[in-house]
């Protein structure tokens, strides 16, 4: 979760949703995101809502401690049950993210998942993912997760190059993420993802190719590749400002993206979202697809975002404040927004256009439709899909997706 929260209206003390949010809910899938806001050390580029032990010391006290975090989070799942009332849905997906979820004992993650199973039930084919830092797991840990019901592992590999990992402040050694994939396979995980970052200062095209090859060689069924974003307020941003490392370059990012798409495609991966590739339909991250298709999910944990039936809300950021609210049986919600029809239309274009399935042209206004025709002319949208009534990005269009979204939402 990024660290800055939006502005919005307050969330009621009991977390109650406006009645219209649950109308027709049964037809939509329901997912859970569980945030674990702890890391052993903070990577210089990272602005996610996560805390190291020393950052927490002195603020939030015992409440914020990761020792009893699983219990606190379970409290929120129980709150979710109350808020959603007699909503009959089982959880279709669960995604544990961070931070570093695997900084907690595997039993804690399993206990959190258990709470969802108890309160909501899990769909028979539920996708249960956790993120993991490569240095934080071993075969026993993975086996415990698998036995506890997890079905998918997502490892933060980032790069195969030592010098790149160093700039990123990653603590694992090259080779470790690939070993993680093997260990996860051995533990019985059918789905494994590797996260990669490209465009790190000092990374060459060849470094990037090596990272891709290493990732592909490890045999995951899913790869996410993100361009390094220099977020304000991070250590990396400071180092760049001081001239210690060069600024990332958008043209280089474009080159790297093309390299990624080429290598991954050649290895049998197919893009299904701008930054995500999978070997088959079954390898896609269904949880992320919930985000992108306007489904419902409950985000539990500090700073986590939720969406149910057109209501978006987000929790207080600090683990101490979060635990405090739940200890007092209050909703940890910090703010929310109730989307109006136009917001939802814009969001649909914004999110769906990034998918390989694209978005239906009938979402567009007259001006947006004209922009779509121009975008086809400029080679940014696929002509055949356009013929068939959908806006689907071409390879070049994916690199300019935000510009296309701006035009199509006119």
């Amino acid at each position, binding site marked *: 979760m990024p660290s800055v929260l939006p502005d919005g209206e307050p969330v009621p003390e009991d977390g109650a949703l406006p009645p219209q949010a649950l109308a027709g809910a049964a037809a939509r899938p329901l997912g859970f995101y569980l945030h674990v806001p702890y890391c052993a050390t903070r990577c210089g580029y990272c602005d996610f809502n996560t805390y190291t032990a020393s950052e927490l010391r002195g603020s939030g006290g015992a409440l914020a401690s990761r020792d009893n975090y699983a219990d606190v989070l379970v409290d929120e799942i129980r709150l979710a049950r109350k808020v959603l009332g007699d909503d009959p849905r089982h959880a279709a997906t669960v995604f544990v993210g961070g931070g570093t979820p695997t900084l907690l004992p595997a039993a804690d993650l399993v206990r959190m998942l258990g709470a969802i199973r108890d309160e909501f039930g899990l769909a028979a084919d539920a996708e249960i993912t956790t993120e993991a830092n490569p240095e934080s797991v071993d075969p026993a840990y993975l086996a415990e997760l698998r036995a506890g019901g997890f079905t998918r592992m997502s490892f933060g590999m980032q790069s195969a190059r030592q010098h790149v990992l160093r700039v990123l402040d990653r603590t694992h050694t090259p080779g470790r993420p690939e070993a993680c994939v093997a260990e996860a396979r051995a533990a019985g995980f059918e789905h494994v993802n590797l996260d990669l970052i490209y465009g790190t200062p000092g990374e060459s095209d060849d470094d990037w190719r090596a990272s891709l090859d290493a990732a592909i060689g490890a045999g995951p069924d899913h790869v996410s590749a993100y361009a390094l974003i220099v977020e304000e307020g991070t250590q990396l941003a400071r180092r760049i400002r001081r001239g210690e490392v060069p600024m990332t370059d958008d043209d280089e990012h474009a080159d790297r993206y093309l390299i990624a798409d080429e290598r991954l495609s050649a290895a049998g991966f197919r893009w299904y979202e*701008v930054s995500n590739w999978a070997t088959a339909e079954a390898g896609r991250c269904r949880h992320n697809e919930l985000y992108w298709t306007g489904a419902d999910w409950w985000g539990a944990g500090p700073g986590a975002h939720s969406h149910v039936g057109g209501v978006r809300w987000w929790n207080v950021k600090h683990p101490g404040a979060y635990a405090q609210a739940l200890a007092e049986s209050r909703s940890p919600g910090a703010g929310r927004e109730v989307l109006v029809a136009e917001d939802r239309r814009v969001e649909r274009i914004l999110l769906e256009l990034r998918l390989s399935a694209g978005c239906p042209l009938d979402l567009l206004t007259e001006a947006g439709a004209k922009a779509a025709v121009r975008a086809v002319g400029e080679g940014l949208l696929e002509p055949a899909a356009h013929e068939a009534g959908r806006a689907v990005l071409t390879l070049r269009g994916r*690199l300019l*997706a935000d510009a296309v979204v701006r035009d199509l939402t006119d």
Partner: protein
Amino acid sequence: MPATPSSVPEPSRTDPALIRNFCIIAHIDHGKSTLADRMLQLTGVVDARQMRAQYLDRMDIERERGITIKSQAVRLPWQPTDGSGGTHILNMIDTPGHVDFTYEVSRSLAACEGTVLLVDAAQGIEAQTLANLYLAMENDLTIVPVLNKIDLPAAQPEKFSEELANLIGCDPDDVLRVSAKTGVGVDALLDRVVRDVPAPVGVADAPARAMIFDSVYDSYRGVVTYVRVVDGQLTKRERIRMMSTGATHELLEIGTNSPEMLPADGLGVGEVGYLITGVKDVRQSKVGDTITTQSAGATDALGGYKDPKPMVFSGLYPLDGSDYPELREALDKLQLNDAALVYEPETSAALGFGFRVGFLGLLHLDVIRERLEREFGLDLIATAPNVVYRVLMEDGAEHVVTNPSEFPEGKISEVYEPVVRATVLAPTEFIGAIMELCQNRRGSLLGMDYLSEDRVEIRYTLPLAEIVFDFFDNLKSKTRGYASLDYEPTGEQSADLVKVDILLHGDKVDAFSAITHKEKAYAYGVRLVAKLRELIPRQNFEVPIQAAIGARVIARETVRAIRKDVLAKCYGGDISRKRKLLEKQKEGKKRMKMVGSVEVPQEAFIAVLSTDSDGDSKAKK
């Protein structure tokens, strides 16, 4: 009529022999307004309780910039300290100090018989002092030389008395020494005005003739017109006639200022005062015009009337196109008080709807722009100021060009540009730097005179176009602030001028077209094109930026096509953030102006247009 100290002569019944009409000539900041304050106090027209600094500088903007834009006239009764001659009437006319307002200065001077030449005793003579002094001499005014600020430790009264005496040909001992701040010497100065400045002479029983030397719009009273009666008498409730237009008006009120308006029965020979006719626009009551009575009026106007002529033009555009009506209204309002302000609607492909506005000079432009922004709350883009060109075509046709983008195509035989006579005063050590600057600006040396051992007056003929941008800033930086500048238009010259166009993706950007000397066209083109390359964001396609003279490209840069415009990072479920980001980007897109198919941020226009036109501006930094 014998006057006693207790009997102050009344307007319309004042013996001209007791009247002294004078003004104060000073370089900016030499203390004219402060001296006027002391005179108001000493003559008792403003008591100490009411006194505030620079009483006569009314407009906020004047107070802030410490400049005087509009002249005023104040009637001051003064009994000379030696008791001689009874109470006199001193009419003090506060002239505008800046070069842009030369014509108004000249009319104010024409209303006087004498002038106080006020010089800062720590600074000495400056260019504006000189320029106005020459004007005063042309008007045959008696000059009373005065050194001000003698209270300052840095004052050098000996040295500058000498300098002043040399300049006007008097004895150094005749130079008065005052401190406008403390008041020292101001009574002696008033005595000297009575002694030296001639009384006005006119024909009392002739048809009335009065010269307008100022005209000010007041939202309560309408236009207040300041006049100096030359012959005859103006009486209240009479009908008057403006001799330049023949328009007649009812005299609703006539009076004098002390310094507030005080109605009177009329004004007689030599008197100075105001009148109100109910007109709402200063252009109906123009500076320099002659007023006479409607019945049995004069047939010959007083000499010297000129229509104010704009010298510098700039396109003013509202940043937000929907403010266009507000801009028009604001200009209409300002024009009520400013006969020299002219404007016409114009449309720019790049900037939208706006006005081409004519100004007397750069200060005038600055002041108007600032008033539009401050008093009317408008955000404006102003195109680079340009002068007026006269273009003769080979087929004999003639074009007057006030907007560079309208420079004619086709066979041109001759282009004329306005020139000025510029006077620069500076310490002698800067002669080299000043001459280099003027030479760079296509100047030709007219002459050079030493005012004293270490100060020199340098005169140049310069194209006005060469000084409208950053000449003064450059001059200041090259002379560490010691040089002063004044200039007056002296006509036109034929020159080798060309129009440089800037093309974005093949489309001309009218707002960036400029007329430059042939030899400077290349430098202008290269500089602008480089600047734009930095300012124009990359687009989905490659954008060539070219500078061209006609069809010939003289400079070229390219903004490479953008290749990546997508956020590729995992933000999980924070969709609100994504939408907000999109909304912000769309806001940014709205602030773009489309030039053909290229999106140009408004800031780019502002950045390019606000830069000076010459490479040597680097010296400033």
